[in-house]
């Protein structure tokens, strides 16, 4: 049986077609900015980070100690009101060595790659990871399961942000 026509359209253009002015186009950007309310739980989380502490919440039903803290447990769907401090140490659950910027351009020659990681914080339930960065470590030395500790900004520079922890370094 002959193959039916199943594909139509999708005329390829090159970047040159556009740059040369052969193909008409317009460009526009949204030109707007956002400010996000921190909300109740994250407000407290950030306030404690400013003091150099990491705070979590615990679900009274499933006993998960949750990070970032939240006002309800999304698994049990019950309100959460028990706050407790956890350590500023943890283990690397997974990591990457990133050579590109947000816009997919490559980092410059000699520029250090970004080192994002998921870190399971000690004192929170197992597997409770937060995304952060690694530092004071050569990329080739990073291992999954490695113990790390938060490196804090000096107290006077902290502003109540996740970046009050500059990065996590190997213990």
């Amino acid at each position, binding site marked *: *049986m002959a*193959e*039916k*026509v*199943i*594909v*139509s*359209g*999708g*005329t*390829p*253009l*090159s*970047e040159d*077609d*556009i740059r040369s002015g052969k*193909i008409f186009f317009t*460009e*526009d950007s949204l030109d707007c900015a*956002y400010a*996000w309310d*921190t909300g109740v739980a*994250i407000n407290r*989380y*950030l306030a404690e980070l400013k003091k150099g502490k990491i705070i979590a919440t615990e679900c009274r039903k499933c006993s998960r100690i*949750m990070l*970032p803290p*939240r006002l309800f447990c*999304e*698994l049990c769907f019950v309100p959460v009101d028990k706050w407790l401090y956890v350590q500023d140490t943890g283990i690397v*659950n*997974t*990591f*990457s*060595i*990133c*050579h*590109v*910027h*947000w*816009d*997919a*351009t*490559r980092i410059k020659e000699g520029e250090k790659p*970004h080192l*994002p*990681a*998921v870190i399971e914080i000690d004192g929170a339930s197992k*597997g*409770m*990871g*937060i*995304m*952060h*960065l690694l530092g004071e470590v050569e*990329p080739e030395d990073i291992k*999954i399961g490695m113990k790390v500790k938060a490196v804090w900004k000096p107290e006077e520079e902290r502003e109540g*942000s*996740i*970046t009050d922890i500059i990065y996590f370094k190997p213990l």
Partner: protein
Amino acid sequence: MRKVAIVGAGLTKFVRRALETPKELSFEATSTALDSCGLKLEDIDCVAHGSAPDAFDGIHQKGEYLADGCGGWNKPTMRVFVGGATGVHAIIHGWHHVASGMFDTCLVVCEEKMSSAMPHAQGFFLTIFDAITERALHPNLLWIFALEMNRYMSRYGYTKEDMALAAVNNKRNGQLHPSSQFKDEVTVEDVLNSEIMAYPVSRLDVSPVSDGAAAVVLAAEPVARRLTDKPVWIEGVGWTLDTAYWGTRDLYYPRYLDKAARMAYEMAGIREPAKQINIAEPYDPFDYKALHHMEGLQLSPRGKTVELLRDGHFARDGNLPMCPSGGLLGVGNPIAAAGTMKVAELFWQLRGEAGERQVPGNPRLGVAQAWGDLMQVSSVVVAGI
């Protein structure tokens, strides 16, 4: 619930930059799908269409904008959007319309024009991260895939070479697909030697950003039997959303897909998917995701997938061909359209109309899947003859 069949399908080429506007791409795929089953727009009762973030096309309320290109003028039309899972989810969305008894025919159309996004589509994903606890770290989209890939590889001791095998398999299949722009053989060495983006992700581990559209026509059983002697039935559907606290989940296993797949298999009466399914179209925006999803789809034992891949189990002529279309890696990745392309592939393969891509052995049952949002949602469609 009524039985629902796929009776027609059409695609555009998947290209890096298309001349066509998003509407025009949708029109090309949709009219091809209608022609393929001999229907006119007036025969269509409703439209279920899908497109991923508005930001790519740069058109807010993109669903409304796209509607006329999808055949939605003056018809009940509804857009579905679940990130990367949209392309398969739109089929489920259309299935609801027909299975419910509300409509006899439904057009399902998905479109994406990623080339509009400047300087690069990846930039538009900045806002998917938690605005306060994650964005302050200046993340980029690749991070989460790289973090997931690394976790998956380390859990089972897989290597980058192992992952590259999946890219090679899918890209080889894709060479035969009429929508694909990629006709050159890619080797494991090519993948390993391509530039590193975010370890362990290299350039050729990633599917190519594309523009394109895909459409299928759904019909209720009596209509389907009148239209064709080879209807492809939607035997099962499933979908699940996991928590957006993605750091809280162990990323080595796609729990969201486990549930979605079991839901679809139960509906289809499938007890042993790995034995009963003849072709699989797991979602493969990255090579590791194809394997990760084969495990979540219960089509491969956890941690044994690379072994099976190496043994040729997932090749086109293997026991369970994986991505015979070529998938996103081999055909291209216009997000929502890519998922629908996978369902269209099941349609052609199960009818024996896939030409030189045809999987041998008269496949009778296939599964297609897509995945999206913060690595948390999956949609699954099981189709059979």
